[in-house]
Each structure stands twice: as C-alpha cells, then as structure tokens.
C-alpha cells in the first residue's frame, strides 16, 4: 500500500507522465472527460463521472483505418491505424472498469479487433473508488463494488490522502517506479471502504430485480406491450449510446479527400434512423423498435450469448443524460421482475 497527499498529487501526475502517457479526467469548458495529462489542464477527480466513459481510450468515437491515395492510375493503400504506446489510464471508476470486460468479450474474440486490442494491451489502469456514489448509480446490481473497483492499481481517497493498492504485476511494476509515493497504512482505507459499502446499500436502485431477463423469456419480453409506453418520449438522439460505457456499435465510412479516400470507423447508435442499413434500409422502422433493441441487447441478447453477463454496468449515465429522462432503470423496473 502506497499513498500521497492530495495537495501533492500534481507531482504524481508529472512523474507518471514522464514515464508513460497519462490519461485522466480533465475538465474543459465545464465538462469532464478523459484527456491526456499536459501542463495546465484542469484535472478533475472530484466529479464522480466523466461525461463520456473510459471506453473512448480503446474504442475512440472516430479513428482512421486506411488511407487510399490516388495518382493517375495508381492507388496507394496505407495502413492508417494509430500506433499504441504504453499508457496509464487513471481515475477509472468501478463501473467503467467492468465495462472493459464487456467490451473485451466483443472485440477480443475471434476475429480479434486489432485496433481495440493494441490499445487494450498498452494500458495500465489505475481505478478510483467512489467516495460518494450518486442516486443514479446502480453498479452493485451488476456485481460491481465501487469500494473495490479493481484494475491494475486501485486508488482510494481517504480524507486528504490518496492510497494505492497494486492488484496485478503490471500495477506493481508501475507503483515501484513512482518515487513521489510513500508507504501507507491499510487501516484507513479499510474503514473508508466500509463507509462506501454502507452508502451503496442506501442508494435507491440498489435492489433492482433482473430475474426476468433470461434467454428463455426472450420472445415474451420482445412482445411486451410496455415498450410502447417506455419509448414514447424518445427523441431518437444518440446520447444514451454515446455516453454508455458498453455500447460498442460502429460504422465504417469513407471520407473523400482531394486525392483519395480516408476510411475511418466511428460510433454508431441503434437509436438512429440510419443505423443498420441491411440490404436497403433500417429494418427497425419505428423508434419503439429501436428503443427495444437497445435494451433487449443489453439485458437479454448479450447475456444469452455471453454466459449470463449483462452489457450494462449500472453507471447511471443514461439516467443522468437522457434529454427526456428515459433510461434503463425504468425498463428494468417495468420488465425485470419484482420491482
């Protein structure tokens, strides 16, 4: 166990970033998102959550794949995939860490997604325990412990100090290089963890019942009349999918340049009318069908194909960010079981 006074934490950021690139929650223009640590950035570890999740670091919103350059009758094809140098990702909450497991199931199974894997292999993750989980948090329902968020190193703020606990070889290796840290005592951390666990138990969504969401109930759930009511106010925007740590759908697009084409991939949203143009067009004609798809995927299809693992981690971003206050909690309460 190592520790540092929060008042000295800039020194730690500087030391880590002298070893590897460091990404952490940074506040810019009033919004906090993961960004590279550089001199002068406004690091924000007080906010419980970033707007966009940490998936951005492995699966960015938009990334180049191939460049085609045309000159005369020649087409030159260039690999445009970015090289991944080792980097440290700091300040990841337990829910986001859990989302990496979900994304790994999608991107690391055969055929492996090389663009995702290169970044995933390059990372050392330092998680941060949640001292004050919010009313919109329900990670415990999906097996996350916000007091023990896991990762390579687990950090906990206790009063004016931050403590670090290595959990993997990668984590121990990084910690051993950090001279700004001093030795810390485990007792303070243990009592802080207990306090967090007590707070979690008092959260309003801590006992959501998921028992109905089973593969064998698939058709029954699909046909439930409540979807109409649940989706009625949906604007068909992509906010929920883009702030969601587990949404993983993307589109591949060509951008025409003066002398060729840039092929890139970017996040896509099943909420959009232009999503999944099979053969001719989107088979889901109504917003209700698109809405149902999103939640059936997270709560029924994904677990049915992945050993029971849901593709929701209970981060509550959709609860906070949906323009019209629709969210997965309302779906679970209506269809999940005894809610």
């Amino acid at each position, binding site marked *: 166990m190592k520790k540092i006074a929060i008042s000295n934490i800039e020194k730690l950021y500087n030391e880590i970033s002298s070893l590897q690139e460091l990404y952490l929650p940074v506040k810019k223009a009033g919004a906090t998102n993961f960004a590279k640590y550089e001199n002068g950035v406004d690091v924000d570890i007080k906010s419980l959550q970033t*707007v966009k999740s940490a998936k951005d670091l492995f699966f960015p919103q938009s990334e180049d794949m191939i460049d085609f350059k045309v000159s005369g009758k020649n087409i030159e094809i260039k690999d445009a995939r970015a090289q991944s140098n080792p980097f440290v990702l700091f300040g990841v909450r337990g829910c986001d860490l859990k989302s990496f497991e979900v994304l790994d199931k999608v991107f690391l199974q055969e055929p492996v997604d090389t663009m995702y894997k290169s970044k995933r292999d390059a990372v050392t993750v330092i998680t941060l325990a949640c001292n004050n989980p919010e009313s919109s948090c329900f990670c415990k329902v999906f097996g996350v412990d916000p007091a023990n968020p896991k990762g390579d190193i687990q950090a906990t703020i206790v009063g004016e100090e931050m403590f670090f606990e290595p959990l993997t070889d990668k984590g121990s290796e990084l910690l051993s290089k950090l001279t700004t840290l001093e030795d810390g005592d485990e007792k303070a951390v243990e009592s802080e963890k207990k306090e967090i666990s007590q707070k979690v138990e008092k959260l309003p969504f801590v006992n959501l019942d998921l028992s109905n969401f089973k593969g064998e109930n698939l058709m029954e759930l699909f046909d439930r009349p409540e979807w109409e009511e649940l989706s*009625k*106010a949906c604007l068909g*925007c992509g906010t929920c999918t883009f702030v969601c740590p587990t949404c993983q759908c993307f589109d591949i697009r060509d951008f025409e340049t003066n002398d060729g084409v840039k092929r890139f991939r*970017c996040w896509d949203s099943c909420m959009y009318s232009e999503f999944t143009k099979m053969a001719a067009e989107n088979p889901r004609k109504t917003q209700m069908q698109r809405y149902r798809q999103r939640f059936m995927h997270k709560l029924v299809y994904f677990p049915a194909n992945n050993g029971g693992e849901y593709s929701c981690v209970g981060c509550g971003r959709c609860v906070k960010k949906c323009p019209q206050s629709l969210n997965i909690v309302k779906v679970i309460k209506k269809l999940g079981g005894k809610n």
Partner: protein
Amino acid sequence: MQKLETLMLEKAKNLLSSGEVSRVLGWKKGELGYDVEPSVFTSAQSLDNFVYNVFCGANLSKYLVQETKKEGKILVFLKPCDSYSFNQLIKEHRINKDKVYTVGVECQGKIDNYKLKENGIEVVESFDEEVDFVTVNGKKFTKGEIVLGKCSVCEKKLLDYDEVISINEKRSPDKDRFEMVKKLESMTADERYAFWKDQLSNCIRCNACRNVCPACTCTKCVFDNDNSGIASKANSDSFEEKMFHIIRAFHVAGRCTDCGECSRVCPQHIPLHLLNRKFIGDINRLYGTYQAGEDTTSKGPLTDYTKQDVDPSDVFGG
C-alpha cells in the same frame, strides 16, 4: 405548485371523460423526483402518474408534430416558452391546430438537473415553488441559483389559448438575455474562436440538440441523408463539429424562439443557445425587435421584404 397540478389534473380528467379529447400530452413522474418525462396519457387511470413541478423543463410542443397526425384531439399543457414553439410550428404548418386543445400553464422557472448534480444536491425537501434544495453536506440552495439558463432570462408570457391555468403572477427575469452574447461580441476574434473551440470540441454528435429543437422538423435531416454527400455520423475533424452547429443555427435563424432546449439537453452542457441568441440579437438590431412564435400568421423578418429593410453591411460594416 401542488395546487396548479391539481387544477391541471382536473382539467385533463374532465376533457378525457367528456370525450372532447382522446389523449393528454403532459409530464409523467420518474423514479427519482428529478427524472420527469414527457408522456401521452389516454385514460383517467394513467393520469395517476401525471406530474407538474419544478422539473418539467421539457418543451412538449414538438411532440405534436406526430401526435396531430393521429386520430382524435389531444390536450396539451404549454408553459409560456413551449407556447412560442407551438405557435411557430403552427405558422410553419407542422401542427394541425384543429386537433389540439391548448391549456397554458403558469411557470416560475424550472430546475436544471446539471446544476443539481454539480452542487451535489441530493435532497429535495418539497416540489413547491418555494422549495429548499439541500446538499448531502447540508448546504441550502434557493431555486433561483439552480434554474435552467433559459428560465433566468425568461420574458415570455402566457399566450392566447383555449384556456389558461395560472394562480400567481409570473416573476420578472433575473438577468439580461443578451448579457453573454454582448460579452462574446466584445471579445477579439481570436478570443471568441478560442471560446467556441473549447466548447464545441466537447461535442459528441449525439444530435440531441437537433432532435429536441422545435425548429428542426425536417422529415430527413441533410446530415442523416446518405445521398446528400455530407451525411456524417462523426466529426471527421474539429472544424466539422463547428460547422454542424453553425449551419444548424443559420437554418433556424428567424424561426428560433429561444426556448433553450438545445442547451438543456446537451450532455456536455455546451451553451448552444448562444449561437441562436446572437442571430436573434442581430435580427433585432437590423429589423426591429422580433420574437419568433409570438403569433401564428405574421411573416418573419428573414422571410419578408420591405423597402425600409436595411443592408446589414450598413450596420455591421464590411
């Protein structure tokens, strides 16, 4: 506020049971108090979840574009700001007014959920107008400190409706609506560029601003149309994200009622309304004070021509 809600509920039940309307467009209770959602109620029983309180910030008028295509008449409750959007949609022939029963409702400003979170407010002691908001640490906030930006500058009135439900006089705005626009205008071009670059580089192109905007009612947006050649699901570079918002602001100029929904829904809290408000300020300067949505018939300054119209270059130079 509870009394207002009771009166609205009574109205809704009466109109439903008399058969005057078949549906009611209003707001529905959430799970946490602040997560109120727009909803269509079809029976007296479903109205059990009806709510009208300080969290009903969502503008209901755009839902009527689809709702008035359906059979039967619908009752809608419109706050002052919603009603200007409603009028503008009537003017643009997007809503069939014959299928709507409009009831204007008093509004003293709605709460900004972001400001709740930012200040760590977890406890709401009551949903009355004179409500106390308390942080987990016991710090108290008055409502004025955490209302939506659009509410702190609201000069909108309850307009001409089938009926109006109002108990108290509306409060006067706390701030000058053009304060921030003036501040941006007084910056150098480089400073202004830096301001918008910082703000708009947070954009995640979720399209919430566009989809919620009552002035954005194209059946198919050019940015969603693969055949347009400019369809874009992502910002290909930092220039493009600026273009999306600037093009959208131009498209709604002269029609934007300043309802503030774009900024309310932005997940990154970008003050998008400032782009629209800049246009509104310029239109006021060039053609005289104009408020889109104040009526349902007049021509807007950008779709009308008079011989007295000034040449913008005479005012702005260039």
